[in-house]
């Protein structure tokens, strides 16, 4: 299992667009990816659960990744958080 501490950089927080990107990303991987924030946790396969975390900009979240491809997934997830999930206008 991998555990990452990441920061939400997108100005609107982990809202609909990043959550959608995570759902799409989840379809191409084997690991289970769970984001924990503020006592709540959300599997990234659920857009509603991810948004339900209410993680705003600068929120520090914990991401756990478990599965055969966890090393690659950890790298990719770190990258997604860092580049604003592909929405540079939100950084």
């Amino acid at each position, binding site marked *: 299992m991998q555990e990452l501490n990441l920061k939400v950089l997108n*100005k*609107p927080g982990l*809202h*609909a667009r990043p959550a*959608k990107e995570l*759902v799409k990303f989840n379809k191409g991987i084997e690991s289970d990816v769970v984001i924990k924030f503020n006592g709540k946790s959300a*599997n990234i*396969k*659920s*857009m*509603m*659960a991810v*948004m*339900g975390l*209410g993680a705003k900009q600068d929120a520090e979240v914990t991401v756990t990744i478990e599965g055969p491809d966890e090393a690659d997934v950890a790298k990719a997830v770190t990258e997604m958080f860092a580049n604003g999930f592909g929405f540079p206008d939100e950084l």
Partner: protein
Amino acid sequence: MSEKIQGNIAIPGIAVGKIMKVGQSLDGYMAAYTPGSAEEELSKLEEAIDTISAAIDESVEAMREAGQDEQAEIMEAHSFLLMDPMLTDGMNDKTREMAHAPKGVLEAAQECAEMLAGMDDEYMRERSADVKDIGRRIARYLLGVKEPEIGEEPVVLCGFEVEPSAIANIPDDKIAGVIMGQGSTTCHAVIIAKSRAITTVVGLENRVEDIPEGAKVLLDGNEGIVLVNPSEEELASYDKKIKAQQEEQKRLEALRDLPAETTDGVRVQLAANIGLPEDAEAAAKYGNKGVGLFRSEFLFMGRENIPDEDLQFEAYKRAIVACHGETCVIRTMDIGGDKPLAYLEIPHEDNPFLGYRAIRISLERPDLFMPQLKGILRAGVYGKAAIMAPMVISVDEVKGIRAAMEKAMAELEAEGKEFSRDVELGIMVETPAAAVMTPVLAKYVDFFSIGTNDLVQYTLAVDRVNPQISKLYDHFNPAVLQLIYRTIKSGVENGKWVGMCGEMASDPYAAVILMAMGITELSMSAPSIPRVKEKIRSISMDEAKAHLEKVMAMETGAEIREYLHSKI
């Protein structure tokens, strides 16, 4: 005998079709449903989700191909939600628990919708209605409710609420209109209908229940009237109206890309009044040049808390982008005791139109005003934005607004956010006090926009919604014209532009006189633009000025109106 039901105008037009009821109660079907074992219910559920999901994907694709992007986007969100484990797991759990698939589905959708409705995110709150829509669609499938069949004749959808998916699923040539019991004109169903220009009447309340399935109806969206079982004569008379409407539309459409200029080449900017950012996009088909009044209060209504800076920024940005480089004038919140909002905490007032409202609230409530100003200043980066303050009566207020703008800019700078320093500040001239003081106010503002609806009401002391005195309400009243002329002259003399954003701007006869006075912008509901343009293009500035001179010497509004209608 036909029956006439009066509703409210949502989307104008005239349509004839056969009633198709939607959104009806499922109680009867529920009572008749015999559930199997939990396992059987679960497998029925799985099959239902797969079927509906495939149907949604198919319709999204068809919509994309037909270029109906707005509609496709809403239905795509349905598809996304239906794939979300939070919703589907919930449906499975409830179905197993209750051993009743339709009940489980509805209950899970309801729970999910409630959770979404409580979220601190506008997008997700809007999805709440979508989740309920999906739940009902799956439940209908499970209960064997026949999806209404569409025959040769176009239908008019009718229900207290009409689900967005119901409209989205019917092709253009099979849907004539929409009738709704509820009164909102900003719900998803109306947005979808508007994007396809489907005639819609809302606000019939429980009277929608009196309209029978399959009945022939005539929908007059211009007047908000529903005629059930119209007679041959009524159909024939509307037939004439429809033909005349089509012919006029063709004539006016031809004007869309032509400039609004007099025969001797003097131009005026014809802008659109909007309530929602998407209205700015829809206005384009009438040939508008920018937006002269964005009624920002729509962003404040129907919510429990103050819309935050980011939400406002996104809305303003969308409207500004749709103006394609022309000015987008955003009016700051214009709300008072007549439309109480919980978070404004306005105590009861006997006379809210003369009370604590609009800029009077904004200047005292930085928690309201700052996010709005900052949202507009940030959105200004994407085009040409202008801020317009409503209900101003004094120079002090304008100074207060300037100071607030300076503070908003300083805060944005400190926060490192991108914003525009070129956003103009103007006031709405809608109180006699402001109109009288325009020679002084002109030194402190970048523009004036004359708000005639209130200017007429306050100048003549005539409540504009009181039918007993409605004949006293007249924008051609000489007292009103004097104030308007004074305002325009004050602007021109000080090098500030002057526009108008009240109903008067959409009166083609008034437009001619206003141009002669020196007005440079007229803002109105977009569909009025072509008619005003047609009149302007038929006259020269010399003629207009001669008419103005005559009109300003007249003594009554009736005399002026009669003169203009006979001479222009």
